[in-house]
């Protein structure tokens, strides 16, 4: 159930606090839209999702040209990064924000230019030599350790500034948005179908989740009813994506603490799943499977058999490898009590997905806001309460078993039917929200249609967006050699956040 409430910027804070209701409704996303050509104003959108019912409230506030609005951050901490992004990309100021530093635009960007405004002209964006302040911790013996953006291993770019007292991390500042490609701007004015190929490439590891979220938003706008068989095939693709991600992530987690057998077996099993992906979708990341309106390809009986056999073999193999981990004292010593995200912090920051479930938040979009065929399927949502690296590991292990269970159901209960439907005309300036549970958590796409089935605005709030601040929170109090392990226990995508 989706409810839209419109208000003005003066009443925004009071209304937001009312809907937020001390955390009963999580702030799931907050973004701006240049609607000056439609109604003379910028618009702010705050998406709240109830934690105990299927209720989504979109609070829309109109902001006047000089562009100020009361900051939600002091009362709703989850708003912090959204308001910084809005400031960078639209030039709207959240008055009262405790930390309005640049987030998206780095030192090379001229301060007075806001690229998501409709009247932004690319030619004006010359090089600049500004500041990108990273707060320091001061004190006797405190020093800084800068890491990245180019990291030692094969990993995405991000900069981390540690404030250290010896080995102990006092503070961690993350500077991200290095892989910011301006995808949300690149799709404006393109048709829904054309823009899809950009959306599918926001992130490699979350390809299917982005494809599903975006397609669902477009299908709501065009009134398209995706056939049941296509919904089942979407779930198959989504669960295959979850499987290879979780197993690969667990392998990477072992790399984070130098447990080579875990890394090696994890990578070996992941490779089998990547090859399975290619035999189903023609691409190892399942690109090309989901499309707005349905799916592009069917699975044959032989393929279904191959999927079932491979997944069963993988489950058996994986269980044996996990047996190696939970018998190994040196391994357990590193992962237990490391990188804790307390429950209250997870709630305040609207942390999602594996990281949230590992800290005791019982939430999963597949169960709480069923989409595709999940409403007809049977599965459990594992929750741990310790909030440490170990919890994020064991939650993934249990989710692997649930994904295998889901895949078995999909294959045995696959209904007959069409694979896709055509898209009708969307009403210009209507908007819709699509969402799915990616391997890292909820992935929201908000689309406003333009004329002739083009995109006026797309906002992508991937699972990594609310979770990155949690990584910065989990590090202090640990020793710096534990940071790679903590980072890998979240295994967030930089590309999903940066877009």
């Amino acid at each position, binding site marked *: 159930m989706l409810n839209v409430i419109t208000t003005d910027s003066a009443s925004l804070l009071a209304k937001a606090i009312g809907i937020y209701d001390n955390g009963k409704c999580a702030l799931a996303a907050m973004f701006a839209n240049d609607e000056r050509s439609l109604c003379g104003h910028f618009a702010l959108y705050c998406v709240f999702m109830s934690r105990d019912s299927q209720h989504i409230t979109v609070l829309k506030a109109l902001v006047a040209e000089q562009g100020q609005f009361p900051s939600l951050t002091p009362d709703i901490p989850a708003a912090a990064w959204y308001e910084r992004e809005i400031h960078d990309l639209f030039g709207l100021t959240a008055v009262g924000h405790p930390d309005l530093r640049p987030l998206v635009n*780095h030192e*090379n*960007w001229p301060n007075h230019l806001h*690229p998501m405004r409709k009247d*932004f002209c*690319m030619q004006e*964006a010359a090089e600049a030599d500004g500041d990108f302040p990273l707060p320091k911790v001061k004190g006797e013996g405190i020093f800084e350790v800068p890491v990245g*953006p*180019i990291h*030692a*291993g*094969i*990993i*995405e*770019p991000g900069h981390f500034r540690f404030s250290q007292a010896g080995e102990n991390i006092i503070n961690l500042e993350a500077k991200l*948005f*290095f*892989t*910011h*490609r*301006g*995808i949300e*701007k*690149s799709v404006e004015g393109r048709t829904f179908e*054309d823009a899809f*190929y*950009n959306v599918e*490439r*926001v*992130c*490699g*590891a979350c*390809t299917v989740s982005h494809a599903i979220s975006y397609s669902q938003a477009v299908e709501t706008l065009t009134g398209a009813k995706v056939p049941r068989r296509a919904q089942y095939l979407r779930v198959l693709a989504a669960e295959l994506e979850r499987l290879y991600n979780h197993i690969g992530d667990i392998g990477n987690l072992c790399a984070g603490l130098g447990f080579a*057998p875990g890394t*090696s*077996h994890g*990578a*070996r099993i*992941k*490779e089998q799943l*990547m090859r399975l992906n*290619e*035999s*189903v*979708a*023609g*691409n*190892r*990341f399942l*690109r*090309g499977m989901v499309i707005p309106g349905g799916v*592009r*390809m069917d699975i044959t009986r032989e393929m279904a058999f191959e999927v079932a056999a491979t997944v069963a073999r993988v489950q058996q193999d994986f269980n*044996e*490898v996990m047996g*190696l981990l939970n*018998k190994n004292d040196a391994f357990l010593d590193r992962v237990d009590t490391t990188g804790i995200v307390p429950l209250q912090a997870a709630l305040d920051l609207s942390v999602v997905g594996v990281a949230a479930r590992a800290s005791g938040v019982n939430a999963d979009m597949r169960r709480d806001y069923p989409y595709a065929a999940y409403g007809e399927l049977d599965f459990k949502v594992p929750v741990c309460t310790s909030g440490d690296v170990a919890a994020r590991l064991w939650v993934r292990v249990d989710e692997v078993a649930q994904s295998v269970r889901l895949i078995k159901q999909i294959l045995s209960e696959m209904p007959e039917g069409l694979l896709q439907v055509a898209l009708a005309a969307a009403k210009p300036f209507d908007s819709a929200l699509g969402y799915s549970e990616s391997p890292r958590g909820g992935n929201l796409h908000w689309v406003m249609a333009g004329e002739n089935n083009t995109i006026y605005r797309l906002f992508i709030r991937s699972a990594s967006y609310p979770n990155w601040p949690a990584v910065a929170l989990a590090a202090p109090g640990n020793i710096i050699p534990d940071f790679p392990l903590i980072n890998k226990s979240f295994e967030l*995508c*930089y*590309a999903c956040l940066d877009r």
Partner: protein
Amino acid sequence: MLHLLRKIMNTGTVTEGHEETAVSDRFRGELRVRAEACGECRSCVAVCPSKALSIEAGVCSVNNRACLFCGRCVEVCEREALRHTPNFRLAELQGSLATSAGEILKQRIRQTLGRSLHIRHVDAGSCNACDFEMAALNNSIYDIQQYGIDFVASPRHADLLMVTGVVTRNLTQALVMTYEAAASPKLVMAVGACAASGQTFGQTYAIRGSADALVPVDIYVPGCPPRPQALIYGLLLAVDRL
């Protein structure tokens, strides 16, 4: 400890050689055009997300470097003039390596590097698919180390830079500094459609373009993402091992 050893014994050897080229039936590899079937309706050109197709003087040609291997053009062609083949060995040598003067360079490389290669990965703004495929090169199936090829942590130790992603504004400095920090002789490989062509998302305020807009590129490896075997093919081609 015994459990670890038992698991290792039970798993056995899984390493494949680089000649292993079997792909699944649905794999979308190199596009082939049946010139006699093409009616020049240009539907394929219109529908290509990265402008990889063009029709000039009656000939439909594909820019492999920009191709996303999405299959849209194949679907849209009413005369079935386009199809994906299983070929993924699409790496192209460029610049100094491709010319006859390149022979001298190749000999120098062979002498200096002794047919081994150390690689530094540089993510210049990718979606992480190419990066995960590169990381897969270290797994026990592809085992890139069997060729004397390895990844290093510092550009100072590198012979080759593997660049992924359209180069973003925010990563321009990192890419250029990494290139300058690598000692000569050095090679640069542009991995994937984004680094090879820069056309994946079109032009935006945050994108500079392909890798060769900023650093000289010696090898292009098309794909979205290129499979690990395609990367190995590109690497062996670069050190003249094929």
